[in-house]
């Protein structure tokens, strides 16, 4: 294990866990994780994974930091308003843990860049803010055979699932076959979102990522976790594989990665 004294001390509180150990810490260091969206979910994901010693973190986001983001997007600070989110994120992550290799992509995710990027990563965490991207990331991860940890939030509710469709588990389309049509659902800007909720769900995604990398614990590969911040309840519901799924079913109709132009954003 090629860890320095400084690294051993930095990670000592988790290396001491028998489920992690030096071997687990080495796995974290070898891991390459792509975070889609450097916003409300992407912030806690990137910060906790960076702090834990994930070797490579990719950040993809085409936006710049806005003052109204700071209520929940803790990867960004007031002096960075106006800066590209991925650059702001890189600076904070490198200050948090200089051992992390941060790769940045200041562009919106699309079918082209997704398939180019995915071979360089082992695991994908989706913290995007619209259905078009969510379906695209799901499809791309299926074709590229990558595990996807999907989290989403709305007002006071969060949903979390681990997608391992390449291992025979259900994909996101098995859960929700189609995105809602534009106009039927309000955007976060219209509906609002509790800042702390983004932190809670993002940290749960980071937790599932660490477990995937360490091969420990149970996964959400066949369930959906629903969190209600007002009632303070966590519920699990079954998430079966849909044999008629257009992507991963027995007679798929989606055989190449295409962009789905879904104008609504929730």
């Amino acid at each position, binding site marked *: 294990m090629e860890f320095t004294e400084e690294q051993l001390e930095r990670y000592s509180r988790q290396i001491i866990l028998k489920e992690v150990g030096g071997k687990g810490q080495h796995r974290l260091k070898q891991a390459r994780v792509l975070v889609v*969206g*450097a*916003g*409300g*979910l*992407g912030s806690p994901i990137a910060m906790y994974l960076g702090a834990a010693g994930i070797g490579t973190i990719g950040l993809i*986001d085409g*936006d710049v930091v*806005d003052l*109204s*983001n700071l209520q929940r*997007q803790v990867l960004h600070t007031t002096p960075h308003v106006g800066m590209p989110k991925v650059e702001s994120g890189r600076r904070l992550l490198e200050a948090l843990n200089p051992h992390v290799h941060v790769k940045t992509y200041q562009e919106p995710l699309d079918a082209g860049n997704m398939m180019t990027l995915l071979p360089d990563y082992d695991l994908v965490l*989706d*913290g*995007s*803010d*619209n*259905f078009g991207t*969510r379906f695209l990331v799901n499809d791309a991860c299926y074709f590229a055979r990558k595990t996807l940890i999907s*989290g*989403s*939030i*709305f*007002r*006071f*509710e*969060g*949903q979390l699932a681990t997608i391992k469709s390449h291992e025979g588990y259900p994909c996101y389309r098995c*859960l*929700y*076959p*189609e*995105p*809602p049509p534009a106009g039927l*659902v*309000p*955007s*976060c*800007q219209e*509906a609002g*979102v509790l800042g702390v909720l*983004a932190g809670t*769900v993002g940290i749960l995604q980071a937790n599932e990522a660490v477990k995937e990398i360490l091969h420990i614990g149970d996964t959400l590969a066949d369930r*959906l976790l*629903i969190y*209600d911040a*007002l*009632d303070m309840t966590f*519920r*699990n*519901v*079954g*998430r*079966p594989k*849909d044999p008629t799924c257009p992507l991963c079913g027995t007679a798929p109709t989606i055989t190449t990665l295409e962009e789905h132009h879904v104008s609504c*954003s*929730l």
Partner: protein
Amino acid sequence: MITIRIPTPLRPMTGGKSEIEGKGNSIGELIEQLNIAHPGLKDRICDERGEIRRFINIYLNEEDIRFLTGKDTPVKDGDAVSIVPAIAGGSHD
């Protein structure tokens, strides 16, 4: 009585309540009955053909009714039904 869990986006239609009660022998009947007490709820859950919208899941206890018998899935007293729409928030706005 059957307990129905209402997701945040639909709570304006139930006076803010996260749980309501209803009656019926099937999921379809339950939706019709709920629409009497909460007009407009059916339109949010079902499309113009009366089918459950493809981005909304209904769970009987912990099972997705799409993998049971859909709207014909029988329900009985004491069952818990959840309505869970897809949500996409996460990044900026």
